[in-house]
């Protein structure tokens, strides 16, 4: 009998990194020690804790990482609470990959890319940023704007500082909401900062973060002359099956699990406002 | 409709809720007095019998318990003054309701056991276990999924 799409396989947590007070990054491999499955940047996977439940997470690691998968997870519910209390060696159930990826090959290739993230919104972007870095020659300039509430809420700061900031033809801008001791970078909200930096409207933009941030950043980008058809974002809704059957993650006639989570802003415009 | 038959050698599983101040101490006294009662009685310590939510009783039956007994201080002796009076009403109504649904009445019981009544504790448990044993397995309220795969 064929195993159904809804039936997960077993993954092993091989590393847990505490990024911020409420975000941890989990490294997961299959029971054979290999990556559980292949994926594309922006896709998601269902992680489940038996007896607690399942939840969808974007895969944070780049597909170019051949050894393992990573998930940056914010503690905010039943499943994430338990995940956060787990230790290395713990097995979990995993299935995927789900959803539409960022069009890294089709649309992004050869373009200058602007990545804007807020808080845990960096998680899905990390996958695509590292993918682009891996195939650096295929892409133009990279600008990354990343903001969080405080410097302690910036996820993956080590990687940002040690790798991204050193990447060729790459600019990284960091900002935090309120001034804080020990922080010498920019202080202010992401939307304002983006306008301040003065990004080039011919770039292809990818936004990810809390809804308010997306709303105002998008406004800012449009004012700067960006076209909606070249701005991408990801949506997050309640999902159960991941394969467009359980009926809960739809926005209009699109399922976030199947037709998303990556959407172009002009596509979203066509959909009813219910996300 | 499931046939209820008492299997040969059936040993019921009994959940006993005991209030911390009287009945749990009564059970302790039964222990220190070496007054035996069947090993299938397992005690859950609650501060007062009034902490026992009917949902706990139902949960026990759902999970396959064959009998549920709640023990508290004698009326008037409640450590929390009035707790067991509420227990008495709650359980009276619950037990009668379960009876109405056709659940055997001997599967549920409320007893008052003081800290001094180790002998009573033991006697009550022996009697309760005997009655539940006579009834056989709890099939009416148990969720078959629980024992799935056993």
């Amino acid at each position: 009998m064929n195993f159904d799409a809804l039936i997960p396989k077993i993954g092993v947590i091989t590393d847990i990194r505490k990024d911020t007070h409420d975000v941890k990054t989990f490294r997961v491999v299959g029971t054979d020690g290999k990556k559980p499955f292949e994926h594309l940047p922006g896709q998601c996977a269902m992680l489940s804790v038996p007896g607690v439940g399942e939840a969808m997470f974007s895969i944070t690691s780049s597909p170019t990482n051949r050894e393992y998968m990573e998930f940056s997870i914010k503690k905010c519910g039943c499943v994430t609470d338990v995940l956060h209390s787990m230790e290395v060696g713990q097995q979990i159930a995993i299935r995927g990959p789900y959803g539409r990826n960022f069009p890294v090959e089709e649309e992004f290739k050869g373009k200058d890319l602007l990545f804007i993230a807020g808080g845990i919104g960096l998680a899905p972007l990390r996958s695509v940023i590292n993918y682009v870095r891996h195939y650096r020659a295929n892409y133009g300039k990279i600008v990354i704007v990343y903001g969080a509430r405080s410097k302690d809420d910036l996820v993956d700061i080590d990687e940002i500082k040690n790798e991204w900031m050193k990447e060729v033809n790459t600019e990284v801008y960091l900002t935090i909401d309120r001034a804080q001791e020990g922080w010498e970078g920019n202080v202010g909200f992401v939307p304002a900062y983006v306008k301040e930096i003065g990004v080039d409207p011919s770039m292809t933009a990818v936004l990810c973060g809390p809804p308010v941030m997306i709303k105002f950043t998008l406004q800012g980008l449009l004012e700067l002359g960006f076209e909606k058809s070249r701005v991408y974002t990801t949506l997050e809704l309640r999902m159960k099956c991941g394969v467009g059957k359980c009926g809960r993650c739809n926005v209009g006639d699109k399922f976030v699990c199947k037709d998303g989570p990556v959407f172009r802003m002009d596509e979203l415009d066509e959909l009813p406002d219910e996300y | 409709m499931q046939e209820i038959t008492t299997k040969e050698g059936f040993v019921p599983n009994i959940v006993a809720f005991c209030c911390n101040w009287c009945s749990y101490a009564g059970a302790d006294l039964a222990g220190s007095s070496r007054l035996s009662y069947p090993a299938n009685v397992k005690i859950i310590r609650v501060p007062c019998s009034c902490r026992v939510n009917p949902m706990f009783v139902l949960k026990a039956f759902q999970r396959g318990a064959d009998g549920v007994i709640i023990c508290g201080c004698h009326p008037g002796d409640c450590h929390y003054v009035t707790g067991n009076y509420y227990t008495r009403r709650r359980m009276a109504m619950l037990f009668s309701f379960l009876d109405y649904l056709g659940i055997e009445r001997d599967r549920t019981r409320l007893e008052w056991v003081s800290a001094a009544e180790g002998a009573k504790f033991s006697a009550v448990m022996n009697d309760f276990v005997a009655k539940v044993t006579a009834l056989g397995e709890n099939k009416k309220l148990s969720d078959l999924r629980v024992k799935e795969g056993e």
Partner: protein
Amino acid sequence: MYRIKKTDLNALYAAIAKTSGLFIPIRRADEVNFAVWGEGKEVSLETLKTVKSPKNAFFPQTENMMKFKTEGKSVEVVDIRTEDKRPFVVFGVKACDVKAFEVLDRVFLAEPVDTFYQSRRNAITVVSLACSRPEESCFCTAFGIDPTAPEGDVTTWLDGEYLYWRANNQKGEALTEKLASLLEKCGEEAVEAQRSQTKEILKRLPLAALDLSRFKEENLNELFNDPRWAELSEACLGCGACTFVCPTCQCFDIRDFKTNSGVIRYRCWDSCMYSDFTLMAHGNSRTTQMQRYRQRFMHKLVYYPAQNGGLYSCVGCGRCVNKCPQNLNIVKVIKTLGGEKS
């Protein structure tokens, strides 16, 4: 075409049940629902609408999917599906419900195929039953369904003293063959007479003139933003009665249940009318009952057709019309937002 005396139906059921399961409208505690037939059960083919639709024949209300076994830090996934592929006959399915199977198929058999659904679906032979006494809440004709000649592997008609029987395809013929000894060949006159009589009634039904033309993809946003949703949904209690009696509703939830020896992961029907349907740890995309109400009908009349080549996810069975505690229903939505043909 074949026929069998109504008085011999029990023998027919028994013959079917010999080689396969038989799922048929059975009266139990005053209500008629599809259930597994057994000797002594009261079959009620005359019942126009079973409370639940027959969809639970292959999309049961709860279904165990798998089991986890855990020990220490390790987790094991155990396949608990039985290899039982015994054929099943679903008997007495009305035209609307047959159509609903197609609606469900498009969801569950789309890639990635839902193998739980598929294995059951494949094992089923559908014996449909034509309607001869439609009632006021029926509006299948609005969806182009002919209740006097339902689809299915076999179509049957109840008329006079007989049940008339016609196989529509190979699967149907295979079943007919097995039952050959009980069936007698006959002409189609009685059936045709009944059909034309029923069609007359259908024209006079109060909902015969529902107009669905406005419910299409290009009006999606307009319909979504219609202010009348507020009024339409104001009495909605947020229960799932409409959902659970609906033959096309397919939303499900996946849940875990702790057993003594592990964790069973099961799925069960869910309702988009429930307040926690889209609840996440950090928010809910549909916080009001109006949004949930709108979702249900937009899905049936606009979203689903948009995804499935114009096929509506409503078959006009009228169950929700009869069963809504507060008399809200899709008909009121269609009338209010779509109107009626003149």
